[in-house]
């Protein structure tokens, strides 16, 4: 007989499922706070490592996604304080977002306020190659590992790691903005944005290699708009989500 108040049993698979569902939101929130994709990714990974150790013993927190984001943010701050460049970044963050203590509260700007939507527009910026757009979206928003993304593209993991690193370097160096375009710019930006969903990817179900390679061969843009890369339905994205 089980105690009704006992925490539900959490195993590695369950944490993995939560990771795929929640990591995109956490990564996006941390990119908004720190303005750095690598810092955000590393911190979220670290937070899930903590969750893996902690949750099986004490059970799930009431809001696992929020717990991950807060833990990741604190870990990132701890880590940045230890590095001199990190301390610069932190002072910049403190200056520019005073009193923004709630990592779950999105900045108020643009027609849609959602960190993940902003991140989609960064990942799917036309200045990045189609392939980089899809790979980054799967990695950052879909919660897929580099290995899983590599498998979807039929390339080796080191090759994919290199492509992802190059794309992230370009985002940083060229300052690809982290924001939803203004309404008048949306139609133009949705065209390059939504083909990245041709692979019908849902979190945790890597794209079928045949679908991506077919798209790469044909080089078609925007021919298929079936589903969102994050499986979310965005109000502003009727071309793909309606």
């Amino acid at each position, binding site marked *: 007989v089980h105690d009704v108040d006992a925490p539900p049993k959490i195993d590695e698979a369950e944490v993995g499922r939560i990771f795929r569902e929640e990591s995109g939101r956490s990564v996006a929130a941390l990119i908004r706070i720190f303005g750095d994709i690598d810092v955000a990714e590393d911190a979220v990974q670290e937070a899930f490592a903590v969750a893996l150790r902690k949750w099986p013993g004490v059970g799930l927190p009431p809001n696992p996604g929020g717990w991950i984001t807060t833990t990741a943010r604190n870990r990132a701050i701890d880590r940045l304080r230890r590095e001199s460049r990190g301390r610069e970044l932190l002072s910049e963050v403190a200056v520019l977002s005073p009193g923004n203590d709630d990592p779950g509260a999105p900045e108020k700007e643009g027609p849609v306020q959602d960190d993940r939507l902003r991140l989609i527009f960064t990942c799917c910026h036309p*200045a990045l190659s189609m392939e980089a757009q899809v790979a980054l979206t799967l990695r950052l928003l879909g919660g897929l590992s580099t290995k899983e993304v590599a498998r979807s593209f039929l390339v080796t993991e080191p090759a994919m790691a290199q492509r992802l690193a190059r794309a992230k370097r370009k985002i940083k160096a060229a300052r690809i903005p982290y924001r939803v375009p203004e309404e008048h710019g949306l139609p133009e930006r949705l065209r390059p944005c939504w083909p990245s969903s041709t692979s019908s990817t849902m979190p945790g179900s890597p794209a079928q290699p045949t679908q991506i390679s077919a798209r790469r061969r044909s080089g078609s843009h925007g021919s298929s708009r079936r589903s969102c890369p994050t499986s979310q339905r965005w109000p502003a994205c009727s071309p793909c989500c309606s």
Partner: protein
Amino acid sequence: MRRITMAQYLLSVHTVEGEAREPMTEEEMRQFMERVGVLEEEIKSAGAWVFSGRLHEADTATVVRVSNSEVLTTDGPFAESKEHLGGFYIIEAEDLDAALSWAAKTADCVKRPIEVRPFWQAPGA
């Protein structure tokens, strides 16, 4: 908005060696210069202007190398490529989207593709 500092971008126009292009008539040249003038005035009044330049043909270039403290001077451009830098603007912009919108105006003005490349910035600069 996190970043308040501006970044600098190189907007470059490339010419293709040996590409047959009808030379401009005097009238076409006048119109071209007028369009460029209007564009440059717009860039300046937006506070995005840093510097610009138009180069002579690549075959006027000279390359200087130093090897074992010896200077070697050779005729011709450095790159083997068929495409050469023909002219450029250096602009300041908040982010890539702002730089791309200047690039679109420039491309429309000079009727040539424009390459947009960010300048390297020292960390913390």
